[in-house]
C-alpha cells in the first residue's frame, strides 16, 4: 500500500534510496544535498539497508569510489550539488565512458563564485556534455519518482549510462510537500535485481577497466556512448509507461500544461515551471492563450518531440536558470532554438535568464514574459533576444 507523507525533496530522495537499497553509496556532504545522504546514512546505521556506505574525503573521491564499486559489479548511488559536482568533474565523464549505471541526485545549486548556496541550474547544465542522462523534477514527488525510474533507465542493457536526477535546491530539497511513497516491495519489483555487465569481481571472466586510448579508438568509444543515448530515448518512455502502470503517475520527455491550443508558450524547467503553471491558469482565465512546456529529460535532448509540441506556436519564451557566458543565450534556449530551426518550427523564440543564485521569480515577472511574447506574436518583432529577468539595472 502506498502512503502519503509530508516530505521535502531530500527526505523523499533518501526514502527512494532506502527502497532501492544500493550496494554502495560513497558520498560527501554539500548544502543543499547534505540531508539526503545524512538521512540515508541513518538507514545504514539502523540496518534498514544492506548498503556499504563509504565516507569519502571529497566529491572527487565520492565519484571515484562509485566508479570503482560500479565496475566491481554493484548498484551504486551518490548525491551532490554545485561545487561538489564541479569537484568530481573529471570522474563524472569517466563514469559515463566506463558505462557505469550510477544514479546521482543533483540538488541544483549555483556554482561559485561568488559563493552562493541557493538554487540555479548552473551545476547540472555545466555537466550537460559529460555523457550522463539528465532528468529534472519539479517537486518532491517528482524527485522521488525520477530517482526510482533513473535506476531502471541507467541499468537497461541497451543504455548502461549514468543518470543524474535534478531538483531545485532549498525550494524542493527543503520544502515539505505531500508525497506519495510507494510500498517497499512494489518498488523492489519495479526496480528489479541488479545485473552486472563484465564486472571486475567476476574472476572467471577477468576484465580491465579504464584503459588508454589513442586517436585510433577514442572516437569509436565515444560513438558507443552516443548509441547508448539513442537507446535511452526509447527506454525512458518505456520505463515511464511501466511506472505509470504500476503507480499511476505519468511521465514523459516533458509535461504540457494547457499547451495544445496555446498561441504563446513558456518553456521552463523544474520548480519555477510550477509557478508558471499558476500564471498560465490565471492568464487563461483572462482570455490569454498561453501554455507551458516543462521539460523533464534534458539529456538525451528530445528535439523532435519538443519541436512537434511547439510547432504551431506564435512565440516561445524560454526561461533559463543558468547562463553560458559568451553564448547566444542560456543552454535550454540554445538547444531548443536549434531543435526548432532543424525541425522547421517557425515560432519566434526568446530567452529569459532568471533566478540565478536563488533569486526568487514571482508570478508578476512570469506574466511580464508572457506580455513580451504577446507583443512579439502581434508585431513579429523581437525587441530583445536574451533578457535577464529581475536583475537590478
Amino acid at each position: 500500500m502506498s502512503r502519503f507523507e509530508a516530505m521535502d525533496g531530500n527526505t523523499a530522495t533518501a526514502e527512494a534510496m532506502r527502497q532501492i537499497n544500493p550496494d554502495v553509496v560513497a558520498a560527501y556532504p554539500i548544502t543543499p544535498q547534505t540531508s539526503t545522504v545524512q538521512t540515508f546514512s541513518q538507514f545504514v546505521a539502523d540496518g534498514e539497508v544492506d548498503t556499504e556506505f563509504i565516507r569519502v574525503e571529497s566529491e572527487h573521491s565520492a565519484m571515484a569510489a562509485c566508479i570503482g564499486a560500479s565496475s566491481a559489479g554493484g548498484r551504486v548511488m551518490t548525491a551532490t550539488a554545485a561545487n561538489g559536482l564541479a569537484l568530481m568533474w573529471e570522474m563524472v565523464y569517466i563514469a559515463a565512458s566506463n558505462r557505469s549505471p550510477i544514479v546521482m541526485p543533483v540538488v541544483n545549486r549555483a556554482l561559485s563564485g561568488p559563493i552562493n548556496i541557493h538554487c540555479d541550474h548552473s551545476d547540472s547544465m555545466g555537466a550537460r556534455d559529460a555523457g550522463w542522462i539528465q532528468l529534472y523534477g519539479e517537486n518532491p514527488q517528482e524527485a522521488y519518482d525520477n530517482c526510482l525510474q533513473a535506476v531502471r533507465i541507467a541499468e537497461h542493457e541497451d543504455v548502461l549510462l549514468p543518470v543524474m536526477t535534478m531538483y531545485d535546491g532549498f525550494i524542493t530539497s527543503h520544502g515539505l510537500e505531500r508525497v506519495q511513497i510507494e510500498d517497499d516491495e512494489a518498488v523492489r519489483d519495479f526496480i528489479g535485481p541488479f545485473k552486472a555487465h563484465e564486472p571486475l569481481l567476476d574472476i572467471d571472466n577477468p576484465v580491465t577497466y579504464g584503459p588508454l586510448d589513442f586517436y585510433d579508438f577514442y572516437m569509436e568509444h565515444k560513438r558507443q556512448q552516443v548509441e547508448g543515448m539513442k537507446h535511452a530515448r526509447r527506454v525512458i518512455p518505456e520505463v515511464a509507461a511501466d511506472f505509470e502502470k504500476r503507480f499511476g503517475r505519468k511521465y514523459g520527455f516533458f509535461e504540457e500544461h494547457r499547451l495544445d491550443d496555446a498561441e504563446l508558450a513558456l518553456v521552463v524547467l523544474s520548480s519555477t515551471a510550477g509557478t508558471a503553471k499558476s500564471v498560465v491558469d490565471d492568464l487563461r482565465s483572462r482570455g490569454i492563450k498561453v501554455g507551458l512546456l516543462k521539460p523533464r529529460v534534458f539529456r538525451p535532448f528530445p528535439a523532435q518531440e519538443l519541436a512537434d509540441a511547439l510547432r504551431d506556436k506564435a512565440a516561445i519564451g524560454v526561461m533559463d536558470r543558468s547562463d553560458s557566458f559568451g553564448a547566444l543565450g542560456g543552454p535550454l534556449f540554445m538547444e531548443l532554438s536549434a531543435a526548432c530551426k532543424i525541425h522547421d518550427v517557425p515560432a519566434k523564440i526568446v530567452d529569459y535568464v532568471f533566478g540565478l543564485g536563488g533569486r526568487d521569480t514571482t508570478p508578476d515577472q512570469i506574466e511580464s514574459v508572457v506580455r513580451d511574447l504577446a507583443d512579439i506574436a502581434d508585431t513579429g518583432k523581437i525587441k530583445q533576444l536574451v533578457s535577464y529577468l529581475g536583475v537590478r539595472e
Partner: protein
Amino acid sequence: MVDLNAGWRDIPRGGKIVEAGNAREYETGSWRAMRPVVDQEKCINCLQCWVFCPDASIIVENEEMVGFRYEYCKGCGICASICPVDAIEMVSEAEAESEAVGAASGSDRRPAKDE
C-alpha cells in the same frame, strides 16, 4: 558598504570587497539572545575573554578589561565560559534590555510605526 538596491553596474566587479575593514559597519549585536555582563569586582584582568572572543568584542584599555562591544557581541558565551574566576555571566537579552544593563544595541532597531 554597498546599497542593497544597487544595480549590476554600481557594484565592484567579481564581488570583491574593496573597502578595507568594512566588517566594522556590520553590527551583529542584534543577533544576540543572551548578553555577557561582567562583575568588575571579580575580574582579575587576565584578558582570556579578550583572547578567546571570536568577534573582538571585549574592550581592553590600559591592559584592563573594561567592557563589551555590544554592537557586535553575538552572545556566544565563550567569554563567560573561559573566565577563570566566573566574573562574566550571560543574561537573557530581553531581561538585560528591560533593565537597561550595559549599552543597548540599537543597530537593527526600527522605529515603531507610531513613533
